[in-house]
């Protein structure tokens, strides 16, 4: 009894320590954002200081945060929905109507993630340029959807595999077509999985920097380009960069916090039978 109490305390402390370690960079970023530039670079680092919101004021004065945030929201949501729209039927076909090539197709899809994005930058840039979709939200939504497609298909495929075939067969016996099977049987049964896949895709889109930096300039620029614009080769910028980063990650942090139950539920979906 005594042993288990001590063990519980130890595990709790360990849990808190790991959580603190993981959260420390974010905490430090938020602290730095309330410092002056000189305080931000002070050595040894300051843990007690006079907080100021000057960096936030300067960040807001120099760039219109809300237009970047709106682009981030539209592009991330659009990219995730588009990826899901293609992936649900694809994963359904692979899970319930597999062919001898299904497994290798899935592996091939995943293998496209192994190519460094810069390797296809020039062809994609040329394509965007000739289609006149450089610096447009639509263009970035397509790229984000394609970028996340392999992961989304894989995740949905594993969730769908957990659904007993008999349920779908019973539906078919009752006269349900493919669409009704997906709409009324498969999707309600795997909703936590689909939701968590969508959430993960949303987070990946929100944090993506390579394509957004290269394919947008101003009209469709999301928050990642907003953050990048505060890094300076000559001059102190840590406080301003931290302020920009804090307000850029705030929406997704809040969103993650609110949906954490859904995320965890989806991740462990089908783990216990």
């Amino acid at each position, binding site marked *: 009894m005594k042993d288990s109490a001590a063990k519980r305390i130890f595990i709790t402390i360990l849990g808190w320590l790991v959580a603190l370690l993981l959260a420390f960079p974010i905490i430090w970023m938020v602290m730095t954002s309330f410092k*002056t*530039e*000189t305080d931000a*670079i*002070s*050595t040894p680092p300051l843990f007690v200081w006079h907080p100021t919101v000057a960096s936030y004021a300067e960040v807001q004065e*120099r*760039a219109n945060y809300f237009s970047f945030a709106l682009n981030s929201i539209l592009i991330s949501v659009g990219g995730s929905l588009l990826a899901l729209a293609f992936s649900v039927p694809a994963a359904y076909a692979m899970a319930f109507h597999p062919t001898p090539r299904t497994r290798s197709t899935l592996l091939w899809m995943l293998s496209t993630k192994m190519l460094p994005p810069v390797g296809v*930058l*020039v062809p994609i*840039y*040329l394509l*965007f*340029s000739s289609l006149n979709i*450089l*610096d447009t939200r639509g263009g970035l939504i397509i790229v984000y959807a394609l970028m996340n497609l392999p992961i989304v298909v894989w995740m949905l495929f594993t969730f769908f595999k957990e659904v007993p075939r008999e349920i779908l067969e019973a539906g078919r016996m009752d006269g349900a077509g493919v669409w009704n099977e997906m709409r009324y049987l498969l999707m309600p049964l795997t909703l936590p999985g689909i939701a968590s896949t969508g959430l993960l895709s949303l987070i990946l889109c929100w944090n993506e920097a390579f394509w957004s*930096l*290269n394919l947008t*300039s*101003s009209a469709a*620029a999301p928050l990642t*380009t907003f953050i*990048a*614009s*505060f*890094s*300076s*080769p*000559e*001059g*102190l*910028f840590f406080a301003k960069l931290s302020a920009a980063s804090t307000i850029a990650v705030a929406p997704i942090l809040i969103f993650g916090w609110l949906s954490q139950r859904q995320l965890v539920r989806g991740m462990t979906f089908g783990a216990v039978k």
Partner: protein
Amino acid sequence: MGPSVNRALYVSAGLSFLLAAGAARADTTLTVATVNNGDMVVMQKLSSQFESQHPDIHLRWVVLEENVLRQRVTTDIATHAGQFDVLTIGNYEVPIWARQGWLEPFENLPAAYDVDDLLGPVREGITYKGKLYGLPFYGESAMTYYRTDLFEKAGLKMPDAPTFAQVREFADKITNKDTQTYGICLRGKPGWGENMAFITPLVDAFGGQWFDASWKPTIDTPQWKSAVSWYVDIMKKDGPPGATSNGFNENLALFASGHCGMWMDATVAAGLLFDPKQSQVSKTTGFASFPTGEFKGGPTWLWSWNLGIPSSSKNVDAAKTFITWATSKDYIKLVAKENGWVAVPPGTRKSTYDNPDYQKAAPFSSFVLKAIESANPNGQTAHPRPYQGAQFVGIPEFQGIGTQVGQTIAGTLTGNTTIEQALKSAQSATERTMRQAGYPKAAEKEASK
């Protein structure tokens, strides 16, 4: 004249009027790609005045990190996508890009622009085959910053033009690691524009150079060894810990917070160190020239940020109007009026340095002017060289070579390799790169002229 002809005339006259009115109202939006340096931020803030003077030209700003900007802009120009109308580019890129036909030349500049007022070395750095391919926004050389209070305490006096040998002596006397006071802070972060920007003029001063007249790398020579030994010895003994992470900003932070006795770096730091809002040592910072070595009068350091127009731009005339405004004497006066003379973009115009108000507001101005005028980017090294550039080599391959050699030299600071090993491997890597790039080639010799 029949009624149908009359009707046609009226219609065509009406159309012409509409077209003319349309042309007069045709608004142009310029996309300006720039880096997040203090002077560019000021330009962005003041650009509303340009827009009110030119109601038909609107500006859209794309502020990017330096390396991202280079990558974006190169991709855009190479694919002729035409996303940008005005670019912020360094004097390393201007001649190389001009040679590729990527930039629009600036010809027939208005008399009021006073092109002869531009500082000679800065102007030469952005000229290719007699034409300007960018207009300088601000320029910099390098100089020595030191702490007057620490020098006084140690009973030392910094000469106006110190030598590297003297710097070594001073650093030894000032260093007090117990109080985290380091005799010297120098760039250690690897990169062609980072540690190599200091090492290149250091090697020149020790009588070395990057390539001999036939483009053969000369990194394994005794001159390089002496220069790199000076650097590694002083940094190990008197430098801050973890120096291989320190670039311009990190050293600026160290010096501004009172941890460095001396610092040799870009002249643009003078304004930042002099500003009490950004520096804790604004009252105790002294200035001197960049140190010299056995070989005197060679190239030291010259960098300028320029505004250029990519050949893919569809709004060349409007872009020229904006660039001539942003690099004009009137713009400098506008900055002085709005933010004070100390905040004006330095290192581009003689008239700025002749201005008594500027001299008063920026006591370091004479050092900066002297440093730029003696930077000598086209000058000779101890032995004849086939390339130009002060702290860089003006060939496209130098970004890769400089960064690779920079990494090798950073390895000697951390103690991973010996100086002999580092220079030997840097020599063979550079030989290989140059061979693969097809050197010596006539075109490059011609390009560097």
